[in-house]
């Protein structure tokens, strides 16, 4: 007979019942008020909310969220620190793998990454990992001194980084900490890439990016603004004449596509890039303090359904449009924009015209936009891939009164660097070909690439991940001098 003690041991333990704490909502500015200002839409968790949210995490032994994160942040680790109110330590832990947590906490599509696989998501809402990441990063910015790490002695090696987007900034941050001299060449008058010229202030305050760039400068990274590589210097000149031992190209994918429909050359038609850049970098939103405004338009149509379109249309509202439309040829469920951004746009009063395709921009005698002719679309039969593509409904033409049209249907690589670097191989879509994503080695010895210039438009975190990989590969290259050849053998 079993002893009483053993019986007690073997009895199934009652599972501790956790009270189901709901996912903490993100405090937001009122939708009507915010549609008229450029201040942050989301306000960030309070300390109580952050700690409450952190207690929802069940600290999985094999956390699915970590491989769901493109840079594998120790998510349960930092969430435990939030629960323990060790916010500075939590921020430092996140920063071990992510240089820009305050950025990623705001703009990463967590719902497709870490949060999509969080085990809680099976039965309830996943842990709000992104919001917690933002909380700890903001806490550190407010309360913590970011200590400068001790740098190793100088190696005497020089690295040139082309482009100060998230990819280039990551490479610079990693390599300066290896003792190399790093110079970033940036075409614009401000560093940050899309983070400063594309994503609007109300979604990502520019001060956050400025702080991170300043931190890199304090570490010793040299920043050369208004330096267009391919014009001022070529990649070959950087390496052969200016003494750089390696170059990282992180020049992004900033060349906008147009629709090629009649009327696109009228005044009042913008690419989203131009529209957002004028607004962000030239501070059109701060007129008359800054005198490079975007004319005030009453009716603005933004073409497209991605993040860039949502940022443009929400900016249009804030710049004073009475009516701001999204014109999208497919159904809402196909929009690549983050659901959160679509919802925000809708709450702010953006009008959605889905299954609608523009066919002509109409204008007056002075050459200004007056309207947009569109067609109603319907979904066709599923094709071989199962996709139901939109096709125009015959005779469904209609005209919307407009005075501005912003085109946000995609971008590709600016060809300048490729044109001035003939031995740099490109892929079919015009992006730089690399050996693989873990090295970023291009066809040209000593030249590495990563981010949107390799993948086409993607995400901030993927560009940063590519930057980190390239920085590791550059470090290897500087130590061994080894290169690769496309037939797989190493070259010296």
């Amino acid at each position, binding site marked *: 007979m079993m002893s009483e003690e053993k019986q007690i041991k073997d009895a199934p333990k009652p599972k501790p019942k956790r009270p189901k704490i709901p996912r903490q909502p993100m405090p937001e500015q009122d939708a009507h008020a915010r549609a008229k200002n450029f201040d942050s839409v989301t306000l960030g968790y309070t300390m109580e909310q952050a700690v409450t949210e952190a207690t929802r995490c069940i600290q999985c032994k094999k956390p699915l969220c970590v491989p769901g994160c493109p840079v594998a942040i120790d998510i349960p680790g930092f969430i435990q620190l939030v629960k323990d109110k060790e916010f500075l330590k939590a921020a430092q832990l996140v920063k071990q793998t992510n240089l820009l947590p305050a950025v990623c906490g705001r703009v990463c599509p967590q719902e497709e990454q870490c949060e999509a696989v969080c085990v809680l998501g099976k039965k309830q809402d996943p842990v709000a990992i992104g919001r917690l990441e933002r909380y700890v990063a903001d806490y550190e910015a407010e309360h913590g001194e970011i200590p400068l790490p001790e740098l190793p002695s100088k190696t005497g090696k020089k690295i040139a980084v082309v482009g100060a987007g998230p990819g280039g900034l990551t490479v610079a941050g990693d390599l300066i900490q290896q003792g190399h001299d790093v110079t970033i060449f940036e075409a614009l008058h401000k560093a940050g890439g899309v983070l400063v010229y594309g994503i609007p202030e109300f979604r990502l305050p520019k001060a956050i990016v400025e702080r991170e760039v300043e931190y890199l400068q304090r570490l010793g990274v040299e920043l050369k603004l208004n330096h267009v590589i391919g014009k001022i210097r070529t990649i070959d000149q950087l390496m052969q004449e200016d003494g750089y031992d390696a170059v990282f190209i992180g020049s992004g994918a900033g060349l906008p*596509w147009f629709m*090629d429909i009649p009327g696109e050359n009228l005044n009042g038609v913008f690419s989203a890039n131009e529209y957002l850049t004028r607004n962000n970098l030239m501070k059109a939103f701060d007129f008359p303090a800054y005198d490079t405004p975007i004319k005030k338009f009453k009716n603005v149509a933004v073409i497209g359904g991605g993040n860039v379109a949502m940022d443009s249309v929400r900016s249009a509202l804030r710049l004073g449009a009475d009516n701001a439309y999204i014109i999208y040829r497919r159904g809402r469920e196909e929009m690549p924009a983050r659901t959160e951004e679509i919802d925000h746009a809708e709450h702010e009063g953006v009008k959605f015209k889905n299954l609608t395709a523009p066919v002509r921009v109409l204008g007056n005698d002075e050459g200004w936009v007056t309207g947009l002719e569109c067609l109603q679309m319907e979904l066709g*039969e599923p094709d071989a891939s199962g996709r139901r*593509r939109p096709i125009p409904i015959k005779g469904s033409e209609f005209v919307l009164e407009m005075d501005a049209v912003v085109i946000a249907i*995609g971008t590709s690589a600016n060809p300048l660097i490729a044109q001035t670097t003939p031995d740099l191989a*490109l892929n079919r*879509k015009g992006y730089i070909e690399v050996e693989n994503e873990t090295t970023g080695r291009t066809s040209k010895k000593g030249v590495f690439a990563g981010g949107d210039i390799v993948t086409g438009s993607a995400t901030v975190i993927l560009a940063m991940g590519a930057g980190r990989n390239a920085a590791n590969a550059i470090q290897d290259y500087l130590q061994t001098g080894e290169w690769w050849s496309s037939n797989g053998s190493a070259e010296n």
Partner: protein
Amino acid sequence: MSFARFSDIVTYAVEKETEAIRFYTEASQQEQYAAAKETFLAFAEEEKKHKALFENLDPQVVANYKFRNIADLKRSDYMVETEHKPGMPYVDILRLAMKREEHAKKFYDDCVALVEGDEQKKLFQMLSQEESKHKLILETMYDDTMAKAGD
């Protein structure tokens, strides 16, 4: 140009394909990068298949030809005319090729109405369907690329 005889039409269609092969081959030669060269050469190869098909056409082949409904996404139909510029981005290359297929299809559709005789009509319908197939392949590639980018 007379399309009175079956063979006139076949000769014309073969010439059009020859012109298309030449166009894409020359475009490929003008490109600097291997990838763009390959894209144009792939289009030239497709046109070669059409040329071979058309060269072997006889009334019997046409009589047995199966017509089916080819979806028309009409992606190129509302776009302005475009021309080859070396170094043009990939989506522009697709637009150029889509537009050419659209014109070819429209031309054959017009011809159906113009000619008399069932054999000739059917031949033009077949040619139109062949161009429609190419247009659909290109427009599908284009639509996939654009959908991802947010269009």
